[in-house]
């Protein structure tokens, strides 16, 4: 406590403002880091433009419009799948739910790509999947 009192006595108001700012910044960044769910996130794109993002730890259902009637996306239990699609083939509906970084579901008629993103270290031991 003595050291802090000494520091306070010898510091200027500018020093104190900078110290407070740094303390605030440090606490805020680490608090935000603790809040962020571990794991990966979902990104939905069309022609390179991001239309929707969510973390895999959320529970969500969202409709995304598209030229072939759009799709209904369900995020639940750490995975994402297409529940309904307005297109004729509905191949994306039949695809299994995805949960690992690098996996994707595409609805070609709606020009939509649903991807699971994440760091390579989150990919359970591999970088890319040949299939």
């Amino acid at each position: 406590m003595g050291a802090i009192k000494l520091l306070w006595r010898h510091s200027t108001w500018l020093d104190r403002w900078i110290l407070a700012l740094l303390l605030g910044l440090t606490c805020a960044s680490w608090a935000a880091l603790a809040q962020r769910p571990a794991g990966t996130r979902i990104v939905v794109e069309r022609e390179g433009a991001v239309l929707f993002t969510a973390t895999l730890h959320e529970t969500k259902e969202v409709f995304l419009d598209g030229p072939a009637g759009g799709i209904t996306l369900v995020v639940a239990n750490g995975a994402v799948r297409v529940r309904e699609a307005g297109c004729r083939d509905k191949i994306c509906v039949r695809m299994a739910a995805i949960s690992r970084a690098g996996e994707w579901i595409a609805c070609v008629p709606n020009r939509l790509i649903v991807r699971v993103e994440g760091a390579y270290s989150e990919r359970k031991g591999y970088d890319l999947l040949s299939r």
Partner: protein
Amino acid sequence: MSTRNTFLLFALLVALAIVGLRSLGGDTPKEFRRSRILMDTVVEITVTDAGGAPLPQVVDRAFDEIARIERLTSLFREGSDVARINAQRETKVAPETAAIVSLGLEVSRASGGAFDMTLGRLKMLWPMDGTQKAVPSQEAIRTALAGSGMDAIALRNGQVSRRFAETMVDLGGIAKGYAIDRAYETLKAAGVRQAAVNAGGDLRLLGGHGEKPWRIAIQHPRKPGGIVGSLALRDVAVVTSGDYERFFELDGVRYHHLFDPRTGWPARASQSATVVAPSAALADALATAAFVLGPQKGIALLEKTPDAEGLIIGADGNVYRTAGLETAWEQ
């Protein structure tokens, strides 16, 4: 508290703030990734070392190159080289189309016709778009096979000729691989040092992944989301053909899109075939051929092809590998 201690306290706070903010900053800061739907699949380009090349411009150019090859080789696009080939007996084609046909004919000959670019009519006969489950009659299959075979087309001086009026050329088994190669060349020419071009699971790797090789997992053909093992690779192409990508089941039988050109029916000897080769076009064609030939003949084909390696998961579920793949294979 001394001035030195005050300075150290400030430095510590600054460092903690930086660490926290960097951790919040996203997935992997050095990784640049973009996706497009091209050639009826998702094409993803990942750059891990741009080498000073401008991003995203160079990646967009790589996508444009894939789109250009798609326009040339599409079966249904009016005015494409393939559409023109199928509309007349002799057709002058673009150098890129000629290169694809040339390589395809080589693989066709080397595989004894297991890879076949003249199955257009057969592929249109089988409903593999998920809309219906119907097995064509043997008579319809026999008719669809008329005019097919490795001798049904020829390439001379950039001109593709069809031997029979019934012959319908379909470059679907090789064009995607070639397009991947063109994207790779675009990235490389721009100075990109490390990248991966991934078209629906068909891959071409530029360099390694940082100091390490890329680790490529191979899809398990019967466990969605499962893998059979992985390969540690750099500067190669990896393509897998499997009976699980496009198929329908009827009365307990799986009918898929990889046809045996000799019978016109889905090939039954394999569940999947993965080929590692210097180019994606070669890997693409060889993967189809190896799948059709099955483990014994397929592995023999890969063993005799220079710089090609691979593994085949047979109909029995066992994994068969070329000898040269042993060091890269991790189960």
